[in-house]
């Protein structure tokens, strides 16, 4: 259990002349709740997409669940769940149909998928809406379905890319409770990206990312202590000279 869930060495990505991510060294431990904190454009989503094998790195390497992201894409994708910033649900299908579609994509046998989908729907309080088309759901419910979809195949590592962007505070709170419960129940490793500083507070460790570079790394308490400040907001300020920007951007 001491193996790293994620081990990135000098990982970087350029989009043409734009350097989205410089050279990131990052180790996330098995079972850890890890926060990637930074303003828009810091390279958070790029990092997640590199680790999820959706992008090819321009330099460096990374192991995810012990598999190389360049050479063992399938094995990496088998071990991870990814909840994207924007919903990936098919709006014309019902909740249940979306989950069934995902179960097939992940090659879950029907007899495994069916009870699991039922359990997730119950857990996420979606049972009454299961046959409603996704287009009729509120943003909060859609997010819940997205997350249910992300953990349906019981990944070892779950990436949550700005999962609460655009949600109201009440819905946000209930999502965090769900994720806390999931972690408690399964020992899931979670890598969260966010620009909401308060969402990073409960993380075991936080990396502050700024303009594609790692600006700080540690537990929230350590970060505050070394920076000599009281909040992660100020930690960020101390490291980057800027405030966390634009609360609802993507």
């Amino acid at each position, binding site marked *: 259990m001491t193996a790293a869930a994620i081990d990135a060495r000098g990982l970087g990505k350029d*989009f043409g002349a734009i350097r989205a991510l410089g050279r990131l060294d990052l180790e996330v431990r098995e079972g850890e709740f890890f926060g990637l904190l930074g303003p828009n*454009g810091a390279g958070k989503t790029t990092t997640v997409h590199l680790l*999820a094998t959706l992008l*090819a790195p321009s330099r460096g390497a990374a192991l995810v669940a012990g598999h190389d992201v360049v050479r063992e894409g399938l094995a990496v994708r088998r071990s991870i769940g*990814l909840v994207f910033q924007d919903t990936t*649900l098919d709006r014309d299908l019902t909740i249940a149909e979306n989950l*069934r579609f*995902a179960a097939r994509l992940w090659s879950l046998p029907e007899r495994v998928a069916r009870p699991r989908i039922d359990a997730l729907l119950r857990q996420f309080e979606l049972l009454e809406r299961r046959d409603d088309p996704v287009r009729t759901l509120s943003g909060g419910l859609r997010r819940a379905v997205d997350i249910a*979809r992300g953990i349906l195949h019981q990944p070892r590592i779950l990436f949550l890319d700005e999962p609460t962007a655009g949600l109201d505070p009440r819905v946000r709170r209930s999502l965090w409770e769900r994720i806390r419960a999931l972690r408690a129940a399964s020992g899931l490793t979670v890598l969260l990206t966010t620009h909401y500083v308060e969402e990073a507070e409960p993380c075991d460790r936080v990396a502050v990312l700024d303009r594609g570079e790692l600006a700080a790394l540690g537990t929230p308490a350590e970060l505050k202590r070394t920076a000599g400040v009281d909040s992660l907001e100020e930690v960020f300020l101390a490291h980057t000279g800027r405030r966390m920007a634009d609360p609802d951007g993507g």
Partner: protein
Amino acid sequence: MRAVYGIVAREFVRFSRQRGRVLASIGRPFVWLVFAGAGFAAVFAGRNQIDYRVYMAPGLLGMVVMFGSLLAALSTVTDREAGVLRMVLVAPIRRSTIAFGKTLGATLLGTAQALVVAGLLLPVVHLRPTLAGALLGLIAVILSGLAMGALGLVLAASIRSIENFAGVMNFVIFPMLFLSGALYPVRHLGVVLRAVAYANPLAYGVDLLKHALLGAWVEAGYGGELPVPLDCAALAVFAIVGLALAASLLGREGGVTRTALRERP
């Protein structure tokens, strides 16, 4: 492959919910039969040993497959816009599996539409294929669907917006239809157009359908023009090359990284 089944099943569920698309796909060939058929039949009347509407039948079936399978690729474009494609790309399946699933979905959709239309159209024009003809026709429809589905996927994977896709499709569909032999024999065309026609997968599909359905008119010069194995091989080549190309295009990074790019201030 469960993933392929999932992709195909979803295409069918989506199609069945789009009633307009279902009706259009079945109605379209009859519109052509009535309007184009009436006009051309009058022009050809008396000089020909075949009723023009009978001559059109294989072409109309080819057209159903073309529309059915080519337009099925639209779902890949909407998947990209809606974000569904990301879910598919992050699943532990190969890009080639995705391309195959999408193409197979398009093929089966096109085939199902062609079978329904054949059931309605052939009695209307009094065409009764032999058993061998019907089997060859089914093969023709499936192979054409594969080639068209793969071609549609190549277009969908390289085109980013629905508006653009619609424009390109119109540009592709009509030359393809007119140079397919669906409305008049390819052999009457000039050298240049004939060369273009033989670069058109639908031409081989329609030719195969003529072999299947117009066997009685071979002597009169209205049957298939190319050898059956050549038609089959050409369609298979189009399908395989299209699949390979679509798989590599789908794997291209642009499909999933729009947000990553947008994220930069």
